């Protein structure tokens, strides 16, 4: 079946621009996660949704980062007034439900480059 998909796969932005990154989770998956992976590092947790509810946003690095999942399926991560330090790969993951919540399935990521 279809896995987690993300778009765009690559994004180049000028410093100060706003960007929006999209995640389509596996159909029927309740939980959705966003991670940020800097070059040469492991992914770091940003935020988590259960259906449409954002239950944890403790990893968002600043108030320029905003995530939503209004209908409990597709999610968008928005970064306002991008800075060079925002350059990273942004990964989305989903998991089925609370019983399987620890097995997260990852998308291919969006590579963001801020110039």
């Amino acid at each position, binding site marked *: 079946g279809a*896995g*987690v998909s993300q778009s765009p796969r690559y994004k180049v932005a000028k410093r100060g621009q706003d960007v929006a990154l999209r995640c389509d989770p596996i159909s029927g998956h309740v*939980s959705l*996660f966003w*991670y940020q992976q800097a070059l*040469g*590092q*492991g*992914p*770091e*947790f940003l935020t*988590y949704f*259960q259906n449409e509810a954002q*239950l*944890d946003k403790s990893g968002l690095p600043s108030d320029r980062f905003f995530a939503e999942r209004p209908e409990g399926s597709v999610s968008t991560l928005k970064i306002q007034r991008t800075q060079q330090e925002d350059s990273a790969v942004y*990964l989305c*993951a989903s*998991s089925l439900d*609370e019983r399987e*919540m*620890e*097995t*997260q*399935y*990852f*998308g*291919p*990521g969006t590579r963001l480059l801020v110039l």
Partner: protein
Amino acid sequence: AQSVTQLDSHVSVSEGTPVLLRCNYSSSYSPSLFWYVQHPNKGLQLLLKYTSAATLVKGINGFEAEFKKSETSFHLTKPSAHMSDAAEYFCVVSLLTGTASKLTFGTGTRLQVTL
């Protein structure tokens, strides 16, 4: 706090020889531990997970890992490396916070397989 330490940033083996990727964890509770693999331009793929059932966990593609509480280790092994195993490997610990499973990744080990 929970964390994992991957002891080698880079490992090089010859095709057909054993693979050992080392990981130590720190956890206040009985942890859930995972190994994920990341091939270039592809999403993270779950290799195996330990959730306190059997201490020797078998995963996909011939990989396995042994949970050793006395050594706080969760090393990944494979008897015979294949060229297709060349990738980045991440050791991961899970922290359950409410209903969320927040993954904490190690810094990764790049596996190189030579002829």
